[in-house]
């Protein structure tokens, strides 16, 4: 196969929409080169968030990056947002093409 893969980390953050811009800015600041965001609903410790009106919308943000960058972002999110905002974040290992992008 022509494709050659590199291991990278995929950091997924689900949080309330009101902080989307800040989470993305923080991630870039800590070394992320890109992100993907999509609208989401959900439920967890902070109750049901059904997206029916602006204050109850969630966003699902995915960031592909090097493991160290993912760690730094996750640590930053934990410190900055976990106490006061509805937020979940998790990491997984993926194989990417064009590793220089991430």
């Amino acid at each position, binding site marked *: 196969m022509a494709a050659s893969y590199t291991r990278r980390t995929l950091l997924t953050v689900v949080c*309330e929409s009101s902080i989307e811009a800040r989470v993305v800015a923080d991630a870039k600041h800590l070394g992320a080169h890109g992100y993907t965001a999509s609208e989401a609903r959900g439920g967890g410790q902070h109750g049901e968030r059904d997206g*029916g009106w*602006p*204050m*109850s919308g969630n966003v699902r943000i995915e960031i592909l990056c090097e493991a160290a960058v993912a760690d730094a972002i996750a640590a930053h999110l934990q410190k900055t*947002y976990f106490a*006061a905002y509805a937020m979940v974040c998790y990491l997984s290992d993926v194989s990417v093409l064009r590793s220089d992008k991430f």
Partner: protein
Amino acid sequence: MPFEPVILFFLLGVIAGLARSDLKIPAVLYESLSIFLLLAIGLKGGVELARQSLSELLVPALVVVAIGALLPLIAFPVLQRLGKLSRADAASVAAHYGSVSVVTFAVGAAYLANLGQDYEGYMVVFLVLLEFPALMIGVWLAKRGQGGSNMGKVLHEVFAGKSIVLLVGGLLIGWMAGADGLKPLDNVFFDLFKGLLAIFLLEMGLVAAGRIGDLKRAGAFLLGFAVAMPLFAGALGALTASLIGLSVGGAALLATLYASASYIAAPAAMRIAVPEANPALSIGAALGITFPFNLVIGIPTYYWLASRLEGVV
């Protein structure tokens, strides 16, 4: 007391929500309708403003804002001492009640139109002016003596927030274009207003029904506050209106503005600036109690109050 049919749409939404109907107003329709309502209110106000000498507005506007700024300052100690709310929660709730609800204003205006009661067209200017001071005060109350007040972010959040952009933008467009210039747009921005407000209220009913759970966490004190505060603020509004010599209709609307609690601009601003405040408390009270209360009971009461005060002061 006369009967305003748009409220029935709100009730339908509440009932559908409580009955766990699968009726959902898509979030995008909500956003689209709120863009429309904010723009339309702004345009209407701007057209009226064009008929007005701006300099005459200055003093009344200052009075309205200054007295309006008392509301969060009065609410805060009540919430913190009597209500035992944390500083952040008390400040956030105070900011919600100090700010204003555009939809409550719109229903108030519809109520007056239904009665054939005129009001000063520049009330929309007061609506805009009253939206943000309370938010600043709320942030200041929450952060006093703590440093890192984030006031810059709040200012940007509020002034570049969509509700101010659309209201002020509509106001300026209406003011520049005047009634004649906007005539070809009347079919949309004026004629459709009430029908689309009805659909928006249906959605607000569904949202309010979804806040019932929050109310349990809010506790009895906050429930009482959510009824008492609008009555107090409404009375203050009616008095302020007498002071600056508004008509009965204008007085009823100013009372409605003071009495209303923000659930668009305030939640967004508080979430950014006072994150440690629990949004379930402020939104539950503002949207779950005060909003329906004002729609059904408050507005007719403020109108009654305004009519009473007219002869007196």
